[in-house]
């Protein structure tokens, strides 16, 4: 009796003990989960949430701007700045100097930093915004402002003039830096970082140039040249959609998705211009047009002498990388002895084009694209273009990518061989070369490609092939080649004169 009742009692006790434990388990588990949920909710609050929590005692010092303020980061940055400045100046010198070399404008034989210190004023980060625009990617926009007092002295060597130091003063950089992190499932979880400057709002990089112990007028047009170089570097390397992709070590990942690559082909026919401004004292302007999407690939029409309503009817093909944000820039120049004058500039956004449908547009020319800088509202005439956008298929894209690579490599090789002073050299005068290159891309494989591909030893081959492939405006091209190269000739130091001469002969001879 005692045994059974004991067992029964024990069993009931045991089961109720378990039940009690179970109850505790549940209770603690729900408590933990509730807390987790609370913490999660409190992790990101907005204004309304805060209003609800705080009621009438809303803390007035809190605001919720689109770009979140990071006062603490700025405090740390200004403290760290002396060390950062010293470390960064060495890095910048190493990484930017080759860049300067690549984008060096014609007429300057050497462009190097002779002094570079970043000054005592630390940059400010006005705000940071984090969003995820695509799965597996985090986009971080940093509103970056720097009105520093760096001391940057560029050693510029130009034709016939010994090295003159040029100081970059009052540098101000206001831009939004976009950093995209490509995520991966391995430590450190980031396989690549993409850096670019957001184009809206346009990056602002202001500075004044001052020659140390001399005058800037010693080399005419030098400040324009430097402006141009800086501008090209910024727009062609950094400004969105152009970007720098940095793979983070350790993780083999396909970063080709992130790279900018040809997306489509734009066929541009420069038809005519109307009512151009007359810039010359005697006679009328001698206009020609330069068209580009990326400043690295510029094409140029022939010059029509003495005409304010010129008709060119020349067709070029340009590669577009990002239809959403890119635009075609049209510049009309007046050919002149010495510096060519710009008659007007206009821009047309590619997004406004229907793919595969030709469109004729009439663009009114402005004195500058920067609306803040346009002083006069005077009419500068207009320019008529016929545009056709063709979206690449996968195969075409690959071919285009290859072509672009070949052209850039050729250019680099030519430069190394000392044939052309810089890649910009090739751009400016020998636009025909680039045009033809792009033309080849468009038509798939032209005769010129064979020539380029077979890599005829010297630059002669490519220049020749370039000229050959242009087809239209052969004589013009010849003339251009001649002109640039003579220009180049005078700008070169004695050492490179031999190859340049040979080019001139060949380049001139081929189209004839």
């Amino acid at each position, binding site marked *: 009796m005692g045994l059974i009742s004991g067992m029964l*009692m024990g*069993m009931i006790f045991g089961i109720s003990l378990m039940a009690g*434990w179970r109850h505790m388990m549940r209770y603690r588990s729900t408590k933990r989960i509730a807390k987790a*949920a609370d913490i999660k909710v409190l992790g990101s609050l907005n204004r309304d949430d805060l209003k609800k929590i705080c009621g009438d005692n809303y803390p007035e010092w809190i605001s919720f701007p689109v770009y979140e303020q990071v006062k603490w980061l700025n405090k740390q940055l200004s403290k760290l700045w002396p060390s950062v400045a010293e470390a960064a100046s060495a890095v910048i010198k190493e990484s930017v100097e080759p860049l300067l070399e690549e984008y060096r404008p014609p007429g300057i034989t050497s462009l190097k930093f002779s002094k570079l210190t970043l000054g005592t004023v630390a940059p400010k980060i006005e705000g940071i915004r984090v969003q995820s625009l695509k799965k597996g990617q985090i986009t971080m926009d940093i509103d970056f402002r720097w009105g520093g007092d760096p001391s940057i002295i560029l050693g510029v060597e130009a034709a016939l003039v010994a090295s003159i130091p040029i100081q970059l003063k009052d540098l101000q950089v206001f831009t939004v830096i976009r950093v995209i992190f490509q995520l991966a499932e391995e430590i450190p979880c980031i396989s690549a970082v993409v850096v670019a400057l957001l184009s809206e709002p346009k990056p602002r990089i202001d500075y004044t140039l001052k020659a140390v112990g001399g005058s800037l007028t010693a080399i005419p047009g030098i400040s324009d040249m430097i402006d141009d170089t800086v501008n090209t570097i910024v727009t062609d390397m950094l400004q969105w959609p152009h970007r720098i992709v940095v793979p983070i070590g350790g993780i083999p990942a396909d970063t080709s998705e992130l790279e900018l690559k040809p997306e489509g082909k734009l066929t541009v026919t420069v038809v005519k211009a109307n009512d151009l401004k007359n810039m010359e004292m005697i006679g009328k302007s001698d206009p020609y047009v330069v068209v580009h999407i990326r400043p690295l690939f510029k094409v140029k029409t022939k010059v029509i002498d003495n005409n304010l309503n010129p008709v060119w009817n020349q067709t070029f093909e340009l590669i577009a990388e990002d239809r959403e944000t890119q635009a075609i820039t049209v510049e009309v120049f007046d050919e002149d002895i010495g510096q060519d004058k710009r008659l007007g500039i206009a821009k047309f956004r590619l997004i406004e084009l229907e793919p595969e449908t030709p469109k004729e547009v009439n663009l009114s020319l402005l004195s500058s694209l920067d609306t803040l800088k346009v002083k006069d509202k005077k009419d500068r005439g207009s320019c008529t273009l016929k545009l056709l956008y063709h979206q690449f298929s996968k195969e075409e894209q690959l071919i285009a990518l290859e072509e672009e690579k070949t052209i850039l490599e050729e250019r680099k090789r030519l430069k190394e061989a000392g044939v052309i002073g810089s890649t910009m050299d090739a751009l400016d005068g020998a636009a025909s070369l680039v045009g033809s290159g792009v033309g080849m891309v468009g038509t798939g494989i032209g005769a010129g490609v064979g020539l380029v591909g077979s890599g005829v030893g010297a630059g002669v081959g490519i220049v020749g092939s370039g000229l050959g492939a242009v087809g239209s405006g052969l004589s013009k091209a010849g003339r251009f080649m001649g002109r640039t190269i003579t220009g180049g000739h005078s700008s070169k130091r004695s050492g490179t004169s031999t190859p340049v001469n040979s080019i001139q002969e060949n380049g001139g001879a081929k189209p004839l």
Partner: protein
Amino acid sequence: MGFVSNVLGFCGFGVGISTGLVIGYFLFTYFQPNDVKDPEIRPLVEQDSETLQRMLPEIPLWVKNPDYDRVDWINKFLEYMWPYLDKAICMTAKNIAKPIIEEQIPKYKIDAVEFEKLTLGSLPPTFQGMKVYVTDEKELIMEPSIKWAGNPNVIVAVKAFGLKATVQVVDLQVFALPRITLKPLVPSFPCFANIYVSLMEKPHVDFGLKLIGADLMSIPGLYRFVQELIKNQVANMYLWPKTLQVPILDPAKACKRPVGILHVKVVRAMKLRKKDLLGASDPYVKLRLTEDKLPSKKTTVKQRNLNPEWNEKFDIIVKDPQTQALELHVFDWEKVGKHDKMGMNVVPLKELTPEEPKLMTLELLKNMDLNDAQNEKSRGQLVVELTYKPFKEDEIPKTFEESKTVQKAPVTAPDGGGMLVVIVHEAQDVEGKHHTNPYVRILFRGEEKKTKYVKKNRDPRWEEEFIFMLDEPPINDKLHVEVLSSSSRMGLLHPKETLGYIDINLSDVVNNRRINERYHLIDSKNGQIQIELQWRTK
């Protein structure tokens, strides 16, 4: 009878309890799912006042305290990254644990130990505020408030004797308030040499630990005991002022201390090419190390000589023998105009054997570009003798370590005396009426020292050190520090201007050994100057 019945009753109770526990276990616990669900998260606006009341203690610090900054962007970043981070961390943990398990299990007669489940859950840690402190020392201090109330699920299955037992950790919650100090700051990336982490409060830790499905942490009392145990353990190790030090850079290397001396003897040059139109060239040699900011050293000029003999000796301090190189330029001296380059060459220091003199005959080149056709022309030769002498280990000035504490004065200081070190760091908001090219003048017992002047700068930084040797502690003395501006032009109108001054009592320095403070300048609007004072004795 009653006694037997009682005994039986007790026995029965005992048996009953164990069977009851087993039945209860199977009834209530065994069939419970062991996965962790995502908590249901409702937006805050929809919640009632009761839940809000419950939340109040967890309100982020940035809401309550103006000195904490909101770091929503880091939270968002973490949230997007969390799924990837989760997988990466779990993968790494598994990989690390695997060899350890394999090594250990044979000892305990266990068949297998494996992770049945390993995930950190869907909830990332959140930063509930960030606070930074600005001090005058060379360090960065930040205090983030980290709260991780996650829903991780870790199930470890142990198999032995054909049986399987599981240990499960769920719902881990860790709230901590660490202080992260980055110091010292050094001029090479990532710009700091060490990370120090310490906890400002005992951390809050909570979790569920299930042994074969039953949560041990729910046994009343046990949870508190375990929590206290963990808190105390962690506190013993990392509660401030105890710190965890993570070295990032070798500070000595980061600062580029001198490691040796290069003795250079410029012997002679031969067959130099003529540069002057009339007569022979007047050559001299300039030498410097690459990556060195010091001015280059020069030999004397040998008039009208194309085979000059110098036999001149120079000592150059080497900071990094692996990357630095000696640059030698031969110039033609001119009375007027620019000196012509006659040729150059470079000797990388890693080609030299330490302590061994090496006589080298160098071909002079136009530049270091190997492909340049102009280098094929003969420009003559230069003979130099190079000896690299690295400092012995104990000779290397370990200023870095010593600067943290106060250095000992050199032996030459008399008894009772010592060395007063004045380090002028920087100034802020100094402004002159006509020009602001500030420099600092220090007056002490009639002795005057000056810093270099900084051109046109309201917030100059000098970082200069001055030393005064004293026979007795300067208890009754004052140090006069004056910020002056000198005209950059040779103007006669406003040659000099005082931007502010300060007198510092030195008795505090003697008592404290070291004072690093920012002083408001007298006769200046908002000017401040940061000065570090040290009193070093034997």
